[in-house]
């Protein structure tokens, strides 16, 4: 008698993220990493093709142009954008900047990240010969 008998509610290990919109958004953000990872593998594959010589490089490039490959690349782009935007949105939390008694507003810190992103993209595009 009188022994406490607390009731423990165990969350479902497999479906917990479906219980709240907040968790679904978080899992979506986590999931986008898979696409980014997949694209990194694609890059490695391309690198191998380049090393194997002109012919295999051309085959590789041609295969990227197939409708399925294009669809996948569009998906990767969308996932990467989602990941970037949602990640930049929380950067002010991880990297607050204090000036005197005040903190630099979050949008400036996120904005700085966007700026860095654009600059990095321009540099890459420049070396890639697109610009």
């Amino acid at each position: 008698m009188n022994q406490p008998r607390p009731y423990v509610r165990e969350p479902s290990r497999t479906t917990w993220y479906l219980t709240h919109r907040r968790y679904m958004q978080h899992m979506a953000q986590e999931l986008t990493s898979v696409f980014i990872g997949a694209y990194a593998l694609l890059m490695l594959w391309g690198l191998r093709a380049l090393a194997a010589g002109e012919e295999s490089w051309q085959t590789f490039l041609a295969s990227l142009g197939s409708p399925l490959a294009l669809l996948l690349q569009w998906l990767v782009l969308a996932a990467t954008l989602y990941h970037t935007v949602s990640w930049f949105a929380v950067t002010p939390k991880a990297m607050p900047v204090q000036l005197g008694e005040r903190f630099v507003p979050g949008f400036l810190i996120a904005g700085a990240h966007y700026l860095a992103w654009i600059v990095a993209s321009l540099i890459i595009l420049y070396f890639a010969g697109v610009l």
Partner: protein
Amino acid sequence: MTYRTIELEILRYQPETDTEPRFQEYCVPCEEDWVVLDAVNYVKDHLDSTLSYRWSCHMAVCGSCGMMIDGEPKLACKTFVRDLPARKIRIEPLANFPIERDLVVGMDDFMEKLQRVKPYIIRDQQRPLADGEYLQTPAQLAKFKQYTLCINCCCCYAACPEYALRSEFIGPAALALAHRYNQDSRDHGAREREDIVASDEGIWDCSFADACSQVCPKHVDPAGAIQQMKVGATVSWYQERLGLRKKTGAENK
């Protein structure tokens, strides 16, 4: 004076008679400026004196009345009935905690974790009282001030998906408190605390879902604190590997 009548659907669990929790419904005539706690108090005083829950200050500072209100962890004393348009309001004990009875959850785990992060000023040398206060500029105060505002209501633990799946995780409020002391210009204990906060059960368990900060009724940002500590711990790790600073922790004591 009745503004509208609502149905409260409250999760009940009486360990002496119930094998598992069950919902019980109550009809409550609310007044216009009532908070959910007022409605629950109405139940206790007029309808069912066997309902158990914690409360005290009724001004969102004591942290007693955290509960799940329509699925969100909230303070019952700061959640206005007028802001919940549905006729029925569902009230459950804070998620991720064992239910002791009705809306009362077990706090032992949280209390142990709070203590574990050494939430007090650690200094190499104490200043004599006669020498007066430590100087701390408003800017130095601002650096950690927001992390002092946690009222330990545990809403963040109820929202944290990591804590739900792995209860060993030290969790948002306790980690934010460690950060609060780390950031205090009077404190020298950051490295001592790092052994705890950067352990397997600490900051690296956090996947930055940000749920804690989104539900915090006092607008503390535990998720931010944890990410900042991750940055700090990473820097320390490299410093140690590069021989720029000595290892701290157990082997040093």
